[in-house]
Each structure stands twice: as structure tokens, then as C-alpha cells.
């Protein structure tokens, strides 16, 4: 079973890297990019076979390590 975790900065947390990417896109002629937010995608290969159990386990991983919930939010997809 595979899981995909998306980690993004919470709304309202300044993202200097995203802002630098936005500025670079502007320099390259891609006008009209109002904002860029940069995050992470983490893919996990799991031994679990039960979707609900896998989701609960991955959420625990997010809370304890994969995301810093002070500044980041996450979503979990199980496939």
C-alpha cells in the first residue's frame, strides 16, 4: 500500500522560497503569477493492507515527524 503526503506551509506563514520562485518567473516573462507557495511531497511504501489503519498511521507520522504543525499543514492520500 502506498501513501502520499503533501506538506505545505500554513496560510499566512511567509514563504520566502515561494516568493523567490515567483520573482524568478516574473523575470523570465511569465507575467500574471500572483503568488507561489512551495511545499513537499513525501511518498511512503507501507506494509499495511487496511486503508483506514494505514491512514491513521501516516497521520501519526505527520504529527510526529513529517510535518511541523506549528507552521505546516498536511494531507494524506492512500492508494
Amino acid at each position, binding site marked *: 500500500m502506498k501513501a502520499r503526503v503533501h506538506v505545505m506551509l500554513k496560510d499566512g506563514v*511567509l514563504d*520566502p522560497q515561494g516568493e523567490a520562485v515567483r520573482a524568478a518567473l516574473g523575470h523570465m516573462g511569465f507575467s500574471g503569477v500572483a503568488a507561489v507557495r512551495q511545499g513537499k511531497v513525501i511518498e511512503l511504501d507501507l506494509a499495511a493492507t487496511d486503508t483506514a489503519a494505514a491512514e491513521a498511521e501516516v497521520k501519526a507520522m505527520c504529527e510526529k515527524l513529517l510535518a511541523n504543525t506549528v507552521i505546516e499543514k498536511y494531507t494524506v492520500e492512500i492508494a
Partner: protein
Amino acid sequence: MKAAVITFPGSNCDRDLFDAFAKAGDEVVKVWHKETELPAGIDVIGIPGGFSFGDYLRCGAIASRSPIGQAVVDFAQRGGYVLGVCNGFQVLTEMGLLPGALMRNAGLKFISKPVALTVTTADSAFTSGYDKGQEILIPIAHAEGNYQIDAEGLKQLQGEDRVAFRYVENPNGATDDIAGVLSANRRVLGMMPHPERVVEPAQGGTDGAALFRALSSGMAAA
């Protein structure tokens, strides 16, 4: 007093921190990150600067969950003293021992230079060797020193006099110019500037020495 300095793969200020404690008269032991227990009789733990675990995932994230990490958390929760400098500050926020988070510098650049700090409180074992409001010169060397905390958390830090140091000129975008913060029991200090890099004249400054001297003589039993 007996100090322990923890070394993670990628720590690079551990020897400087070791020397700074030793110069203040402390007995110092080195502790490797794979240890699960601290040596007996430790009064203070130093978590050094560097790039623990290559800053993978987030700065300090992997180090904070390393085998010695839980022992550090337990030690702090028992009332032990912990000093985290630079990457060590990042580790302490990732452990949840200090509030807030350290993010990429607002200007995106790694900044390495001496900066002027204001000692915001003298009410801690770490800062009692300074006068409140005193200006000191301590070097910074970081790319992720931009301290962020929500409005409620900031109000709490300010209300409880837990901002230890503020930048005179904000180099990295940190909220409220914050360079260092104390825990609620005032026994855990995290700071981005490196006091261990200015403890003797040969290093170009001595403004950090008072922190280690005060700590060495001012710690109460855990």
C-alpha cells in the same frame, strides 16, 4: 557544574561549545546522538550549531527525534538546563521544548557576521551576567534563523518576559526582532547567535563569555 554537549552527524560547533563550557569552569562530557541516556550528574545540556543530518526534512527535525532526543526532552521536563545555539535552537523548537519555528531568512541568503543584540531580560541563569538592555556583539551564521510564532504565542513570550535577546538590526525577518527565547521555567534557552564563538579575545570578542560564566554559577538543582 557538569555539562554535556551533544554531537549529531553534521554538528560543527560542538567543540566550540565544549570549550566555552570548559573555559567557564564546567566539567564537560561529549555525548553521541545514538546514546539513549545522558551520563549521570549532568546539570546542563548544550545542543550545538551546525547542520545536523544535513538539514534533511526540516532543520533540526531528524536530530530532535534521534535516540538521545527523548533523553534531552525528559531532562528538560525534569527542570534541567538546556542551551541550544543556532541549529540547537532549531532542534529545541522541533522537540517542542520552545515555542515557534525557525524559517528561511527573509532575504534567502546565508548570513555570517557579528550582530548587535539587546539583552532583553537578565532574569535567567543564562542572562544574569548581563544587564537588562545591555548591547552585546555576537556572531550569527545561519540561513534559517527567521523566528516565527503566532500572535498569541508572541504575546505570551512578551508577557512572561521570555524573549532573551533581540537583534538591534533585524538580519533575517524574525518576528519582533527575536534572537533568543526562554522556556516557561526559564531553564531552556534557544538562540540563533553563537555566544560560544566569542568567549576569548583570540576569537575577536568576549561578549559571549558572561553567558557561560553566569550559567556555571547560577544553575539551581534540577
